[in-house]
């Protein structure tokens, strides 16, 4: 059975321009579905929307919900607070983003393959544990009476009554970054380990011949070899500065640490769904639209930085 044949006997072919268009189509559909279609939800910010009741029955209020942010200093203060938390914790994440490199470099220096595999496996596993389970693990460690840490401190005679560590509100940003690192360190190192494997072995041999020690080799060969990968990942994480997720903060949040743990995503979630009321959706939508403003600002900032440093624009 031959392929589809045109009357003239030539095989049917799609012209190149359409073929390229067809190849592009799946991605256009995906982007439309997941990036542009959700923007339609922005219309809720302009109505007194309540779920289940059609929008056409709801009151159109124009920019009222946005104006309440402008007109209420308490609400402004809240938004400044959550944006500050978001940027601070994302910023700390970026500041510590060199840790997986260091870890990968050191890991690759371990000569005992068995030990190396064990370390790598153990550090990768936390990435696959959901934040809810991480919290229950933290609870087991730190809970007041049955918690491991409290028991230990009590048995050793440092304290007489249990301390509720999870309620403490000091250094929340650092603590959250530490939890994030514990969870992501091994996983983050995988990409660098692959990059290390790709470095030409001859470079090391040449260096050894020239009398370079292990640290010299790391510093002058491995690290420079990893930098391109690092910068790509860094750029991606700067673009995601405002999207630091919410599940981690949702599970660790309580009345005491709320002021410093609440990030923008979590704040929007709480406004819209959290308090058992459904009338919060329009205001929550209005606040979440702020996120787009921040993201666009960040994009332009990164762009001008790129222009300044490399002389070329990314947009």
């Amino acid at each position, binding site marked *: 059975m031959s392929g589809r044949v045109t009357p003239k006997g030539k095989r049917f072919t799609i012209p190149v321009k359409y073929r390229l268009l067809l190849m592009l189509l799946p991605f256009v559909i995906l982007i439309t579905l997941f990036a542009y279609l959700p923007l339609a939800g922005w219309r809720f910010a302009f109505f007194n929307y309540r779920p289940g009741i059609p929008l056409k029955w709801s009151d159109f209020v124009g920019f009222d919900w946005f104006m309440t942010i402008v007109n209420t200093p308490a609400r402004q203060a809240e938004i400044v607070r959550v944006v500050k938390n978001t940027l601070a914790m994302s910023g700390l994440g970026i500041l510590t983003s060199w840790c997986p490199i260091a870890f990968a470099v050191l890991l690759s220096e371990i000569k005992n393959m068995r030990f190396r595999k064990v370390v790598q496996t153990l550090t990768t596993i936390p990435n696959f544990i959901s934040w809810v389970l991480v919290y229950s693990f933290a609870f087991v460690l730190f809970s007041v009476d049955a918690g491991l840490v409290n028991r230990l401190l009590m048995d050793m005679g440092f304290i007489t009554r249990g301390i509720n560590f999870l309620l403490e509100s000091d250094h929340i940003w650092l603590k959250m970054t530490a939890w994030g690192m514990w969870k992501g360190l091994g996983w983050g190192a995988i990409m660098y380990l692959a990059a290390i494997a790709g470095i030409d072995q001859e470079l090391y041999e040449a260096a050894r011949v020239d009398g370079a020690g292990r640290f010299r080799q790391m510093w002058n060969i491995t690290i420079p070899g990893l930098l391109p990968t690092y910068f790509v990942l860094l750029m991606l994480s700067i673009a995601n500065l405002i999207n630091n997720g919410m599940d981690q903060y949702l599970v660790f949040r309580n009345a005491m640490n709320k002021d410093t743990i609440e990030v923008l995503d979590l704040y929007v979630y709480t406004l819209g*769904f959290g308090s058992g009321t459904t009338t919060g959706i329009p205001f929550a939508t209005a606040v979440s639209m702020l996120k787009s403003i921040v993201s666009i600002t960040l994009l332009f900032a990164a762009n001008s930085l790129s222009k300044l440093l490399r002389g070329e624009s990314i947009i």
Partner: protein
Amino acid sequence: MKNFWAAITAALIAMAMLAGCGGTASQSVSTAQSDQSEQSSQATALQSADPEPAGDTAREEYRIDVYSQLANYAGEQVGWFAKMVKDKFNLVLNIIPTGDGVFATRMSSGKLGDLILFGNNGQEFTDAIEAGMLLDWYEGDLLESYGKDIKEDLSVALQFNADTFGGGTKCYGFGHNVATSSQYSESAFYHPDIRFDIYQEIGSPEIADLMGYLDVLKQMVDARPTSDSGLPAYAISLFPDWDGDTVMSVKCMGAFYGYDEFGFTLYDVVENTAKPVLDEDSYYMAGLKFFNKAFQMGILDPDSATQTFQDVCTKYADGRVYYSIFSWLGPSNYNTPDSLAAGKGMFAVAAKDQKNVVYGTNIYGGNRIWSIGSRAEQPERIMELINWLCTPDGVMQSTHGPQGITWDYDANGKAYLTELGIATIGDPNTAMPEEAGGGLWQDGQAKMNNSTFTTDEINPVSGEKYNRDFWESELKREPSAAKVKWQEAFSVLSEDEYLENLNLKVVAIGSDFVKDTRSADLESKYIQVSTAIKDGSWRAIYASSDEDFGKIVADMIEQAKGFGYDECVAWDMEQAQERAEAVARTLAMNE
């Protein structure tokens, strides 16, 4: 590669087990699940073995979604209540509790549920009506043919619902705890219960007022610093799950002094006026100070802000907490036959100046609404179920268990508990016999968790109240050693008598008052003020010094006011005025 995955899987399992061992919550969930699967398999086995299926099995099985905002349970109803409903109506109840975003999602999907139980008659209920999610009970012959008893006995409550929410012609259900008269009061549940054995051990010191408790409780903890199993004991243990507009445990201090919860105010049930919670001299502030003092003295459980209701129940059961706000919280968990026989138990001891709020009965029903989904396939069968729950048979069986097994009527027609029935009260984990559905008593209780008639209503079959505490057979039953000590100390027989004789209660009159819905703008302010008050309150409870406390409270007030607290309170005060008028109407009617 294979080894790598094997290692990961093994480690994950180990991790999960580690988490499961420590967290009592996750442990109980997994046991509940295994119980459930065990029971459902038992139930099916039983069913197929049953030679003559009783009742309505001729009709095909009908599985209904019960969306209950009152349920503390998710999944299929199991145990004795499941068997009862299955045998009588061939219904299977799939219980769906509420949570973050559940209502919004179900509303958007266009189907809330088949049987829908609302936690209150506020915005969500009226939104559901507006969106056409609820069935009009007055339409067609639904009530005449399938809800005869409801139509006959609950006509006032039905018409009240129609007048309030359906323009007088459409009825969307009725509220809980309906009574046939508004002249008596329900049995009390707001009263402080303390570990009476320890209290006597330290010489039963007098408690003059709220703050007077603290010294007594401190002495009790000093006398008995550990629980029955040897873990550290605390005087007070709180939990945040049930916080509403304000922190639940704190507002309850108002209920000890004649104030009922009312938005951001406390409603004085005697004077029929309202007092804003953040006023310096409100009982909410007194409550905050009370719990903070307890914290500073080291007798408040440090877990209070992070634990769940279930965790607290476990602590009460082990005797780790000496003070309880609700009669059904501390005593019902701690006063097991074993503790009572050993002379230990939690009983009511109120401060001299207390006026505990007791709710008056209400002919219009409360605000927890029974309703049917407009898209239910066979609404008539759901109506039959609700109708049965409104009959004496339904109230008795759904509350006290299967007749003839946990309770029965004696030769004189009076109700009494069987041996098994008595055992289930002492220990909710008592096993039920196979013919009644098997499983444990408490797993089989009706998980939808709403009532039709109040149990303080008279059962026409026996002439006694539905509430077993008032059955002649129960009153005659020999009290435990622990209870006798308490009865002798105050020369009373029951908790209600204690409050009555020592003049420790006030009645909140039931009325036809229903709160208006708030405008969208006010509602959004309400949410943020409420969050500010709740967070501030918890921080204040954990303040390390009085100075710190004052600062946190001042911050809380400033923040709440910034979000529009004053406007919210003004609205609450208007509503309080309406409630006062409704109460006056009831009083006029009673005369």
